[in-house]
């Protein structure tokens, strides 16, 4: 790269990328997009040209995980280390990639500069954990023995020519009905994109003309890729877990080909199908939507859809469908029939509390901002969902962009604001894209901009992409990052409602909170209030994942019991293992043991149990999960995400983590438990912001319910064998001598002895678990 080129390019970027003064992050994002890192020369030029100080530029460039100061490889491998991925071995997967690519401990890029590997907080595809994203392609269920295959598959996908399927001229008779296919991030990672591609090819081949509708997340992540065929007058057909090679059969089954011979064949198959009933396609699950006994029905039973209303029925970016389902009627009603005070009164009456974690009353927040006197006010939709193991906000943003836009517009009208910002983390590219497109469509339709729906109310929305810092979910840190600062939280008061973005009154609501607003306005506060418990009204969306049979996005009434979620909706624990605990609320929350399975979930009961609602990650743990390891995992997350401002959080969480590390590697002593608990209470009491104040919760709650597991570690034993420093791998006499483990072992710790019982050399073994996973007869065990 020539210096001159960098300077010229940087000039262009400065000219185009920084519309609002002081917004440094978008500028750096644009530079990084160009070079895949931030060249020093470009940063110096930004300083010379804009006068933004070096401490601001470098302070930001090194604060947010997204930015790189050194060139990256051609492709970026992101290994998700979110909770669901963690409990399914993401750490081992990361190590395996590094070994495979021969990347040493101090580096992140292979020698050829082809791949750079990094850990990411959560890609939000928890139901198909462990998840790895290589560039834009997401791979699910990646295990340590599939590293080579995954990379090969990626390279192959790269080589594949993008075959553009052009729709043929519309001389074909258009079939009535439609085909729906879910294209949320999880679905795509599970192969929905390939299914869609095959679907289009198949329609073309069979000369079938029918509407293919991409719908948002159905929530049934455990059953994807899913295809629904709706024909007028007929029962809709659901196909779950389909493979691309099955698509053709399904199409032929449901649609007549325009080709006469094909038609005959189709009739034949139709008859054949009727005989075999549900057995076709063979490997695919076909469900009758009216059948109450299917996993799909059980999953949906007991759920109430408010934020996720009309799930699976709408193309996320089809404004007309949204309107047909009643979309924007609430906004219209607010603008025509209600004044801001009445709206706030209605929200207050509904009992809605913030779904971002702390559960503050939404109506009161609106009231504060509405009452604040200022020439300008802001409304921010907080979509910086960073909890490892939570993907509710991503799903809502991807699937219901118009609903959230409607919600934020109502909030803005009530609060007296004309300017709104969607703050969405950069790890959610699809969410950013959909919101951007939906916002543009709303502008075109007069639903945003000046004089919305011919009223006196004007409202403008811009989008701000977060740059990878969990702490920016905290509202004061979020504001700092928009203002072009390091994402450091500050002490409240003053609250953002009094002095927020650019010191103006600012209303910050979580995505889910805003998604509930249109429903409350259209159905009334009473309808909302009738759902839920005494102090927690309405529904809550949870990301259900972990060791559960049916994971996915669920929306349930407040007050539902843990038991119902885990066993009825979730279908119980995978592989017939024993239910041990749920982890709720992510790194701010805690673990609730199986003994409290009847706990009815609401803000108060969770707090009483030592957990918290958090943003809604719900990870199910079974008897093979080590609770000390889980606590250590969450603590390592918050420690890593601490902004570093206040002593208690910066140093306190680090020292706690060191104690946890010692416990997990058998180096701790019994009095370390007291020290850990004391320090946890100090960090909780003394930290400035919510991150630090809640960081000790996972440790405290596991100490409360699973102290004996901590003690076991101190006595030299990890009861579940999860803490690799404390276990050894052995091969039992069940070994059939197939040598698969030998081929998998990355460090040659198993010698090649065909037909004989193999032996692991403990000295060489790095506990990567590859042998245990590949063994066809479960002969590899840990002690």
């Amino acid at each position, binding site marked *: 790269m020539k210096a001159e080129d960098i300077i010229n390019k940087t000039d262009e970027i400065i000219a185009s990328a920084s519309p609002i003064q002081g917004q440094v992050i978008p500028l750096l994002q644009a530079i990084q997009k160009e070079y895949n890192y931030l060249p020093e020369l470009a940063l110096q030029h930004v300083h010379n040209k804009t006068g933004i100080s070096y401490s601001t530029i470098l302070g930001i460039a090194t604060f947010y995980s997204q930015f790189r100061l050194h060139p990256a490889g051609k492709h970026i491998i992101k290994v998700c280390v979110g909770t669901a991925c963690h409990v399914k071995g993401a750490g081992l997967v990361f190590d395996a990639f590094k070994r495979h690519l021969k990347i040493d401990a101090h580096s992140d890029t292979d020698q050829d500069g082809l791949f750079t590997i990094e850990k990411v907080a959560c890609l939000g595809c928890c139901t198909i954990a462990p998840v790895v994203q290589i560039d834009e392609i997401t791979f699910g269920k990646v295990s340590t023995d599939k590293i080579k295959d995954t990379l090969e598959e990626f390279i192959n996908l790269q080589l594949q020519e993008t075959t553009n399927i052009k729709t043929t001229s519309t001389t074909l008779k258009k079939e009535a009905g439609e085909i729906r296919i879910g294209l949320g991030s999880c679905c795509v990672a599970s192969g929905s994109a390939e299914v869609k591609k095959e679907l289009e090819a198949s329609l073309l081949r069979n000369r079938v003309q029918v509407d293919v509708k991409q719908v948002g997340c159905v929530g049934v992540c455990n059953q994807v890729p899913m295809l629904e065929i709706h024909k007028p007058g007929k029962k809709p057909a659901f196909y779950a877990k389909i493979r691309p090679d099955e698509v053709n059969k399904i199409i032929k089954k449901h649609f007549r080909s325009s080709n006469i011979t094909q038609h005959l064949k189709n009739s034949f198959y139709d008859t054949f199908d009727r005989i075999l009933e549900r057995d076709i396609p063979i490997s695919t699950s076909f469900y009758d939507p009216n059948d109450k006994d299917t996993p799909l029905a059980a999953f949906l039973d007991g759920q109430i859809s408010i934020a996720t209303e009309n799930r699976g029925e709408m193309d996320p970016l089809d404004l007309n469908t949204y309107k047909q389902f009643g979309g924007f009627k609430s906004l219209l009603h607010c603008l025509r029939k209600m004044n801001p005070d009445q709206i706030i009164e209605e929200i207050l009456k509904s009992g809605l509390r913030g779904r971002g974690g702390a559960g503050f009353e939404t109506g009161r927040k609106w009231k504060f901002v509405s009452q604040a006197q200022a020439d300008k006010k802001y409304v921010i939709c907080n979509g910086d969902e960073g909890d490892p193991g939570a993907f509710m906000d991503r799903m809502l943003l991807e699937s219901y962009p118009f609903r959230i836009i409607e919600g934020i517009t109502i909030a803005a009208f009530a609060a007296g604001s004309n300017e709104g910002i969607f703050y969405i983390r950069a790890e959610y590219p699809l969410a950013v894209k959909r919101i951007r497109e939906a916002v543009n469509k709303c502008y075109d339709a007069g639903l945003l901009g000046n004089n919305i729906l011919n009223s006196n109310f004007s409202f403008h929305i811009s989008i701000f992409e977060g740059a990878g*810092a969990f702490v920016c979910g905290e509202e004061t840190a979020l504001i700092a990052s928009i203002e072009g600062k*390091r994402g450091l939280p500050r002490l409240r008061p003053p609250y953002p409602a009094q002095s927020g973005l650019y010191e103006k009154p600012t209303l910050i609501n979580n995505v889910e909170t805003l998604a509930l607003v249109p429903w409350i306005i259209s159905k009334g506060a009473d309808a909302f209030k009738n759902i839920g418990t005494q102090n927690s009204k309405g529904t809550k969306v949870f990301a259900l994942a972990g060791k559960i049979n049916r994971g996915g996005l669920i929306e349930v009434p407040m007050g539902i019991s843990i038991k119902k979620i885990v066993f009825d909706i979730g279908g119980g624990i995978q592989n017939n293992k024993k239910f041990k605990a749920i982890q709720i609320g992510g790194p701010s929350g805690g673990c609730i043991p199986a003994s409290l399975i009847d706990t009815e979930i609401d803000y108060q009961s969770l707090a009483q149990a030592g957990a918290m609602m958090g943003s809604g990650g719900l990870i199910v743990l079974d008897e093979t999960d080590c609770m000390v390891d889980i606590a250590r995992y969450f603590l390592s997350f918050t*420690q890593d995400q601490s902004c*570093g401002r206040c002593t208690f959080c910066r140093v306190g969480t680090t020292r706690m983590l060191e104690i946890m590390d010692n416990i997990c590697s058998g180096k701790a002593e019994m009095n370390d438990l007291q020290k850990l608990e004391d320090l946890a209470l100090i960090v909780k009491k003394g930290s400035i912001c919510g991150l630090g104040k809640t960081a000790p919760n996972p440790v405290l709650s596991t100490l409360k319910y699973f102290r004996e597991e901590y003690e076991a570690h101190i006595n030299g034993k990890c009861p579940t064998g999860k803490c690799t420093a404390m276990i050894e791998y052995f091969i039992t006499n069940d070994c059939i001598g197939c040598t698969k483990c030998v081929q998998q072992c990355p460090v040659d710790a198993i010698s090649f002895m065909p037909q004989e019982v193999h032996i692991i050399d403990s000295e060489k073994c790095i506990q990567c678990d590859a042998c245990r996973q590949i063994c066809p007869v479960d002969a590899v065990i840990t002690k």
Partner: protein
Amino acid sequence: MVELKINDKIIQVPAGTTILEAARSAGFSIPSMCYLKGQSNHPSCMICVVKDRKNGSIFPSCAMPVNEGMDIISEDDEIRDMRKQSLELLLSDHVGDCEAPCQLSCPAHMDIPLMNRLIGANKFEEAIRIVKNDIALPFILGYICPAPCENACRRKQINAPVSICLLKRSTAQFSNFEEPKTKPNGKKIAIIGSGVAGLSLAYFLQLYGFSCDIFEKNKEIGGSLRYDISEEILPKRILDIEIEGIKKLGASFYCSSDFNPSFYEEKIKNRYSALIISTGVSTQDFSWLVEVDKNGIVINEKNFLTSVSNIYACGSVVKKQKMAIRTAAHAKQLANIIANIQTEKKQFNSRFAKLTKAELPEYLKESVSNNRNNSIDHLTGFSIQEAIEEAKRCLHCDCRKKDACKLRDYSTLYSAQQNSYNIGSRKEMTKQFDHSFVVYEAEKCIRCGLCVDIASSEKDALGLTFIGRGFNVRVQVPFNAKLEDALKTTALKCIESCPTGALAKII
């Protein structure tokens, strides 16, 4: 105006005032390190936490604005504990010596690194002042001290320790030290014995304004220094020089004085405001005067008092001392007690074990690499040039801001322990010397960001920047440029504001 209560005192302050300022204006002291009025980096250190009496919440007072009707407790047991914890957490991430290991191992607690720096700069007159602050007889001890300081010297990890004892002698050798004249206070002290203890006591007490009469049983002054140590170890000439110095201060010596009951009755009793017995290791029995046990005279270890009021004992007569320097140290302590000079409360000291391999070159940045000159003859000692060369071998382990460090002062105040959270491995010291008068030792930094904020708000050249976040955040010069280019106009303000020794003036 906003009305609030702090420690039950009702005060009124303008809206927007912080609780820290409000409390200070009402006369309550609240510790703070990261806070500087006008800067925006705080809160960070969290030592200024206070409590809201109404809900028990704890928050940093430097960042919390006053609110009508607030009821604040500025300090109680819980707050003190939180402050101590925050200090201990900071200390667990703070590497460096407050005082150098040599000074800490010196029984007289002499400021050895400062002496070395002054000798290195050919400032012997100033160097001996530093020595004589703590050691009355540097010339003599320069011959006989077993030098525990050299055993502690970090230089040992590179080659031989700095020749501290000989350097101390050189300050007496190469200076014409004139003691300041002190106004007599009219009080008289009797000292029995003229060895290291007696001479040292006489030196300090004379300086403090007392007039001392020293009684020696032998014909000549000096006790064991004269009679037990050979000429090859300590030439009599040297002993005489230092005795002469003490005489010059006005002390009177009475030789051939046998301290017995009748002598006591006739010459001492009721004639002096205090009597000090410092006869050294003695076969003499003092049980006719004070309580004794198998070691010697029994004293109260805090104030050197014997069983009789106004009679003190010091040195080997109490318990046999193996090192003259320890006796010298006791003598100074006793002189301070008699003069009623408040000896400081034992100060906090940040310490750490050995230097790592990576730290050696960092420490050598302000030193020289050559080994100790082993050809020095004991009786001849250093030449001026040799002394200067040797002094330059010092690694200057001590902190330049040991007397101006808030972290140290508050750690002393709140009895913070350095090792409470020593769980992981410690960081390795670095020293950045690319500025004409500023040195930056990053591992002493508590990440408060005052310097970053000052340099930025006052638009200094390159300024400083935070790099990274969380536990790994550190303050650095942008793009690894030189400190010289980073701090120009604000260098002094940054040094002065830095609550620790991270940023300090080189000399």
